[in-house]
């Protein structure tokens, strides 16, 4: 578990217990907000829950590693698609990881 995931997980638990300090809220939400902000564009085609639609595949069943690997493969055009290779060019490795932490299966709930 990397530090981002660790922080997110801790916060989820903290929120449930209602024990978090305001400072900690801010730190965590900033991390989440960055991921949410990056992922805004994903939802338009893959649905608000990543459920997909018809020919537009769902994101929610992908585990984190698959999400990251596929995204990177689109970027290097080793995996083909009519669309995703064009979108993938606009995101760095770090940003892809952030989005995976939000959208992929097994992300902190």
């Amino acid at each position, binding site marked *: 578990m990397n530090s981002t995931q660790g922080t*997110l997980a801790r*916060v*989820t638990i903290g*929120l449930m217990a209602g024990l978090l300090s305001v400072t900690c*809220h*801010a730190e965590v*939400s*900033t991390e*989440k*907000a*960055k*991921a*949410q*902000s*990056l992922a*805004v*564009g994903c*939802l*338009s*085609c893959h*649905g*608000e*829950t*990543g*459920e997909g*639609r*018809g*020919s*537009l595949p769902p994101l*929610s069943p992908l585990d984190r590693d698959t999400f990251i690997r596929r995204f990177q493969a689109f970027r290097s055009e080793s995996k083909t698609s*009519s*669309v995703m290779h*064009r*979108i993938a*060019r*606009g*995101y760095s490795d770090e*940003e892809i990881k952030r989005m995976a932490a*939000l959208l992929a299966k097994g*992300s*902190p*709930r």
Partner: protein
Amino acid sequence: MRFSRRRFLQQIPSLAAIGCLSVGPLMASRGTPRIVVAGGGFAGLNFAHALKQLVPAIDITLIEQNSHYVRCPGSNQVIAGFKPLESLIHQPARLLREEGIRFLQGTILGGDPERRHLRLEGGARVPYDRLIAAPGIDFRWEQIEGYGKAESLKVPHAWQAGDQTRLLRDQLAALRPGGLFMMTVPGNPYRCPPGPYERASLVAAQLKRTNPRAKILILDAKSKFSKEKGFKSAWTRLYPGMIEWISFETEGEIDHVDANRRTVTTAFNRYRPDVLNIIPPQKAGTLAEALGLTDDSGWCPVDPIDFQSLHHPRVHVIGDAANFGPVPKSAFAAQTEARACALSVALSLADLPLPEPRLINHCYSLIASDRAISVTGVYGLKQGAIPEVLSLLESSPESDQQMEFINAMDWFELLIETTFGKG
């Protein structure tokens, strides 16, 4: 499966968590902040949906002039006679009610950004803590001599959907055999940059069946256009000899239009088509001007971090009316802007730092009744301040065009459902 917004919150509670965190100083001192959304199109509706998901307790009022919305995306299919006009009409009130968003039908005359309220026709005042202005576009009637609002009732623009869509559709359906359909296209920026060329393509697709000797002439105020390569190769392949595009260099500016005689006069020629479609130069919707949100360009300058107006704090502008640098004016962009803006409003109400927005515009154009091409842009901020293009690529090999059509239909269904509700 019934689409459920509740499910979204359950499945991605990280978003809901921001809602839980939104006990910022504003809420603590003044109660629930009042959010007012002016405009019920793609930008306004998607903002309201997204903010309500992020902060379920928030108080949102959406003000829209009409009880129903007639959408532009898809209207070229209606104009070309492939879809009924009714398919463009949506009534979002039910979805808003289900979400707990107040829908107020009314005409906004203006407002006071210092005292933070809007003035409605009939005298009512609507106070707000944050205003989200999504007024769409209006036309610069003065820019083409001889073409004003009154003339558009004879010679349609069909660039706002509704009666104009019907008028152009009916005129095209009555085009004489071998007749000429002429479109004039403005310079950038305007709503839906590839829209005119999609219109020409779909009209050609219909005329090829019903009136194969007919011709389409596009008189452009530009010397290049969106998805030019894809459109031009489709025209050559699918509609050989039917569509002619005339660039600014060739023909120069329109000198004047005579709506009664249906003529367009340029520096070099006079055209007398059988059906004329003038797409006028555009600006932000008149409400933006009334609220003092526009600059000399006619569009609304915004802080790209949170879409806040550079003229008035606590007023955000999204959708076609906003000037967001290179991001085109499309429904796709409006939806991503709306969601990004909702996130930044939720965070700022909770007094949390704002991330840089990352926007996507992925825009499909139909080139036939079963084929599409697309352009995809990803946009970020240079040095955290200036909108820039991170990636901008056009499709589409011919082998992808039928797949792109299927993708386009699925995306479109999703867009319509998330914006207006199901059914």
